[in-house]
């Protein structure tokens, strides 16, 4: 299935003196990769354990950023003492699937004399929060302002994305904003939360849940519905803190979408549905540009020139997107998958895209820093 090419081990001590979990991870990784005779840049997969009390979420991105890595596959394996073994077969599966070629699997811990009373000892807590930078909005306001300064994009260009989401939500009775359309003026009239972001350009947090079942293609053909096939997938993690983003106007979805579409042998223009993660309007703007549908800086004109409704020339987020449907926390990303499946099964009553056969689905996490793209297709 796969082979283990490098090992690293730290000498156990009863007590560490001023160590951090991230530092212990870094040394363990350095030893294993050196033992494998590989360069740091050859490692394109990362599997880590949970860091309860230190880093509540986004552990893989936190570790990747600390190590200066930008993996194509990253995950937490949270199986207690089975985590190590669990990492190895998961690494093998990722390599077999063509998602990456060399995976470092790492678990490490400190045992300090005085564990800090306040949990949350990660770099975001230390170098962002004290400057008044808490919460997700800032990490999207900063790329948005950069885009405006660099390309001259205007508030109405972004607001139009939110207006389309609200429009599409009118055809989805499940959407939180069903019955509440909003045009460009209304979006621009909503309060500024963190410049240049208006309130209506930000998802409404809701409670909810989403789930999908994945089987082999052969198995799917014997089941109830038209199978929706996974034709391509790509993933990329570039950073954790917005201050460490390699670019503010292009994200890891660029690489993730390119890989997914290359695997599927299609381009973005072939898609019947663009089911694009839309936590904020800037997210859709950057995704359209990174997908190659328009030039860098050109999303405003593209959105103005196209019809993003289910009956338009470029259907985008026919369920209303998260901007129209609501963001049920992490399940928000899965709504884009669920809607794509409905469309490809031709079961999206009241908003069916004619002849829907191909969909591009994107997921985004943290600060435009965790990206996964899927190409889904039906016969």
């Amino acid at each position, binding site marked *: 299935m796969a082979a283990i090419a490098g090992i690293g081990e730290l000498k156990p001590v009863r007590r560490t*003196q*001023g*160590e*951090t979990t*991230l*530092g212990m991870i*870094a*040394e363990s*990784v*350095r030893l294993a*990769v050196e033992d494998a005779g590989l360069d*740091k840049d050859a490692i394109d997969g990362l599997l880590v354990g949970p860091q309860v009390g230190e880093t509540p979420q986004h552990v893989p991105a936190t570790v990747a*950023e*600390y*190590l*200066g890595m930008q993996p194509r596959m990253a995950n937490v394996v949270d199986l207690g003492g089975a985590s190590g073994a669990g990492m190895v077969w998961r690494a093998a599966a990722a390599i077999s699937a063509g998602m990456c070629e060399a995976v470092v699997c790492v678990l490490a811990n400190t045992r300090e004399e005085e564990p*800090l009373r*306040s949990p949350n*000892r990660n*770099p975001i*807590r*230390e*170098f*962002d*929060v*004290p*400057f*008044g*930078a*808490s*919460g*997700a*909005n*800032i990490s999207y*306001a*900063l*790329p948005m*302002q*950069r885009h405006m*300064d*660099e390309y001259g994009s205007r508030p109405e260009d972004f607001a139009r994305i939110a207006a389309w989401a609200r429009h599409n939500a009118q055809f989805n009775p499940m959407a939180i904003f069903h019955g509440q359309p909003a045009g460009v003026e209304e979006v621009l009239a909503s*309060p*500024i*939360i*963190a*410049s*240049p*972001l208006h309130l209506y350009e930000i998802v409404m947090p809701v409670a909810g849940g989403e789930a999908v079942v994945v089987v082999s293609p052969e198995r799917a053909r014997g089941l109830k519905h038209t199978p929706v096939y996974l034709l391509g997938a790509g993933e990329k993690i570039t950073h954790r*803190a*917005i*201050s*460490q983003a390699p670019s*503010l106007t292009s994200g890891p979805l660029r690489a993730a979408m390119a890989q997914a579409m290359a695997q599927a042998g299609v381009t973005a223009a072939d898609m019947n549905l663009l089911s694009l993660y839309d936590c904020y309007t800037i997210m859709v703007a950057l995704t359209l540009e990174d997908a190659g549908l328009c030039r860098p800086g050109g999303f405003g004109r593209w959105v103005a020139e196209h019809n993003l409704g289910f009956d338009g020339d470029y259907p985008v987020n026919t369920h209303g997107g998260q901007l129209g449907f609501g963001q049920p926390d992490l399940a928000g990303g899965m709504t884009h998958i669920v809607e794509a499946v409905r469309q490809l099964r031709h079961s999206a009553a009241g908003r069916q895209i004619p002849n829907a056969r191909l969909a591009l689905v994107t997921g985004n996490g943290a600060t435009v820093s965790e990206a996964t793209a899927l190409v889904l297709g039906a016969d």
Partner: protein
Amino acid sequence: MQATTLSDLKVPAPIPTRVSRPFWDAAREGRLCLQKCEACARWVFYPRSHCPHCWSPRLAWHEASGKGVLQSYTAIHRPGHPAWNAVAPYTVAIVALQEGPTMLSLLVDIDQDEMRVRLPLAVRFVRVGDFTLPVFGLDKPLEKLK
């Protein structure tokens, strides 16, 4: 900022680690200090146990120029942490330091309508609650001092 000053704020302070403590100690003394890797000669921020460029553990502290370029900025009207409401709106920015690394900080003493990407910045030090933070203002050319 209005009646409440930054030093009055009761806000989450940084929790230094053994590795990062020199950064915060230097800030308290009005100096911006960063690690520099002795193996690959590149500068590092935020402080770490290993160089993120080459993974060498041989990092040494040096004083940085304090100069940087504004990458982007945002005026926070609704802070994520309620303790910052007292000084909202305030401006958070990403600064590309002359030495290479980028950091998040506060922008001070620049009018909202003067702000644009690529402004040249210089560090200054401000007390926020119990800590001294490196923040950034315009890097004014020497001619203006005449």
